[in-house]
Structure formats: C-alpha cells, structure tokens
C-alpha cells in the first residue's frame, strides 16, 4: 500500500503504478469531488491542490502524490462551516449544474493565495484552466471576487 496525505489525514491507496491520482482518489478513497471529464488536462474539473498548487489529477500518477499534501474539495470546509470560497460561490450562484464547481473552487483557492485582491480580468486569466460547459463564467468571476472580499474581511476588520 502507498500512504498519501489527503485533506490532512494519512490514507492508504493501492501501490499500483499505472493509475492516475484522479482514479485513486475516486475509487480507493471515495473522494468523488474530483470530477473526471476530459481526462486530458484541459477542462480542469479534476483539479486538486498538491502542496497548495493546482494540478489536474487526471494527468498525475497516484504514486507521484506520495509524500505530498493533497487537498480535495471534501477537505475545504471546516466541519459545518463552509470555506469562504464555497460560501461566495453559493452567494453569487457561481455555477449552474455544478459539475465543474469543485475544480473552479480549488483553482480559486490557489489563485487567491497568490493574488488576494484581483481584478475581474485577473480572475478570468486565473480561472483559465477550468471550463464551465453551462457557461456560468460571469457568475464564477463574481463569486471569486466575492470570495476575495470574504477572505480579506477579517484582516480589514483588524486594521
């Protein structure tokens, strides 16, 4: 067995070499928030964070993840408290069918850590690795901007 660190917990997956991380997350661990759509690294729906950076889990081998901190959408909320980005996506209705949403939210998390006060154009470029087949893009951009507000709010209150 191979030990991975997923959402802060040590978990075991099969030590088979020839499978993708997306497959291991979904099949071995039941973390089906990593949605597999194109399987070619273009649509971004299987996006996860590896040591805080966004990666498409369909193009990564499961064994490549050993020793790294993996975050999936399931690991974002703190118990019943949604992560501010999740909250913002609900408030701004940053989705229609919701299939692509986990990938967008995880891309947004890495993006906002690098750029906490983005413009709408910067959000569009930052989210360029995720495709929404419903075309909810304007709402997604609003949601990411709202998430930035929510995440900056405690810091501003302390000033």
């Amino acid at each position, binding site marked *: 067995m191979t030990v991975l660190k997923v959402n802060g917990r040590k978990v075991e997956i099969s030590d088979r070499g020839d499978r993708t991380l997306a497959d291991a997350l979904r099949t071995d661990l039941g973390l089906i928030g990593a949605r597999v759509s194109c*399987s070619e*690294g273009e649509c971004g729906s299987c996006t996860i964070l590896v040591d805080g*950076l966004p990666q498409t889990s369909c*193009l990564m081998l499961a*064994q490549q993840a050993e020793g790294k901190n993996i975050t999936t959408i399931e690991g974002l909320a703190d118990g019943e408290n949604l992560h501010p980005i999740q909250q913002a996506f609900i408030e701004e209705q940053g989705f229609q069918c919701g299939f692509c949403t986990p990938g967008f939210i995880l891309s947004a998390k890495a993006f906002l850590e690098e750029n906490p006060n983005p413009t709408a154009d910067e959000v569009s470029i930052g989210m360029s690795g995720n495709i929404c087949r419903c075309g909810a893009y304007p709402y997604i951009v609003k949601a990411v901007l709202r998430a930035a507000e929510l995440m900056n709010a405690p810091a501003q209150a302390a000033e």
Partner: protein
Amino acid sequence: MKSSFTYQRATTPIEAVAMLAQKGAGAKIWAGGTDMTLHWQQEKTKPTVCIDIRDLKELDYIKVERDAIRIGALTSLATLERSADQHHVLASLSKITKLMATPQTRTLATVGGNLCNASPAADLSPAFVALGATAMILGESGSREVAMFDFFQGVNKTALNGAEILEEVTIPLPSDGEIHVSYRRIDRTVVDIALVNGSAAVSVGSDGVISKVGVGLGAVAPIILDASDASAELEGTALADVTVGKLAAVAATAAKHAKPISDIRASAGYRQDMVEIMLRRALEDTIKNHGGTI
C-alpha cells in the same frame, strides 16, 4: 489496451540514468508526466516501467550568470512563468509560458519535459533555438552538450540515446551588449497547440550594431527549424538603420525553410503564408524591445 507499468522514483539524476540503463526500452522517464500520462492513456506509448524524476531538486533551478542563463530541466513551467523579474530574457520566456496549457498543467509540467516530448509545435522550443541555447545531457559516462537545434530529431524524437536524461538548458548571453527574444504564434483557440509559431532573438552590441540574429520556427516541419542563416541582411546593421523592409527580407528568407503540411488545424498554404508574416512581427518585437523604432 493501455500498458501496465511499475512505478519507481529516482532519488538522484545519476540513479535515474542507471535505472534507465537497467530497465531497457520499456522504461520511460516521467518528469511532470503531463505528456507521458496522456500518451500512455491514449496508447501512444506502452511503458513497462515509469521512472519518476519530478522531485529531483538538483535539476530544479534557474540561475542567471554573467555569460549564461541556466534552466534546470525539472524547473516547472509555473516556476519559469514566475521568473520574469530575474532577467528580461526570462520575462520573455515567462510570457511564452503563460500561453502554454492551463495553470494546473503548468504546475506539474517541466521545461525539460516539454523539450523531451519534442512536439513540432512546442511553444518554448523556437525561442531556445533562436537564442542559440544548448541542451546538457546526462548519461552513464557523464554529461555532453548538444545544440538545441540538434536536440530535436523528429516528432517526439530527441538526441537522447538510450540511458540519457536532459539536465539543463543553457542560454548563452552576449559578452557585449544585450539579447532580446520574442515569440509569436498563430492559434485557433486557447489550450490548443500552435498552427504556426516562431521566435526571433536579436543581439545588439554596445556600439548599437546588430551582432547576431537567431530564428526558430515551429509547426512547419517535423522538428523545430533553425532559420538563423537568414540573418545576413540584418547582422552588421545599426539598430537605428533597421527598416520594415529589412525585417521582411529576413522573414522571407527564413520562411523558405518551412515545409508545412496540411492537417486538421490549417492548410500547408496558409501556414506557409503565415510563417513569414508572423516572423516579421516577431523581429519587429525584438527591435522594439531593444529600444529601436521601426
């Protein structure tokens, strides 16, 4: 059917080479693996052993030295993208990187992996050819250097022989004056590969005279073409005397190297027409970067 393979992680570059030698032809190197995993899924390659080198820190660096910029083969595209403030050549390469794949793929993918995949339409390759870069290759008996234009041997084929890995791309810097590089590509949509791409690198000495011009062309042959021999009309010309006509003449000469094909993305005729126009624009970009006016 997709092949079954075992996974091994190399802990040093030399160990990776030794593993390749020991495991034979079925062993394939995974750098970031974004191309390899895809090609395996699409059954374009049938590895029996995956040798993962992604985390070899020894090959993950960008060094700006007086006479060269050294980019470790395992530098991620995301790291290259964020290196813009280290040198103006890196700023140009950073701009190219932003055109490549998605932010997610750039996190995992490496500069060396992109070169070793040897796609005729690769985005960084024309710039490295135009810059006169060399590839540092590590094998069982030590390291050797290959000029970037010789590194590409065919579609998905490189100068790497058997048990060898790419260690570094070395970009020489002129001893006098500055070099600027630019890149142009014509594409159908984002995340797609280029229909035609090309790069121009122009060195201008401290006397204001163009000392060297390099040209790399992509997606118009099975390999990246070095069309630097078209530069005669510009070399020795003062920056102040550069005209659109001279740039167009270089572009026209360089474009004769192109042997494009027709495929799903574009016709050969369209590519042939575009390569000249695109290259003239790339040359204009470099002249402007040098502070020249056209």
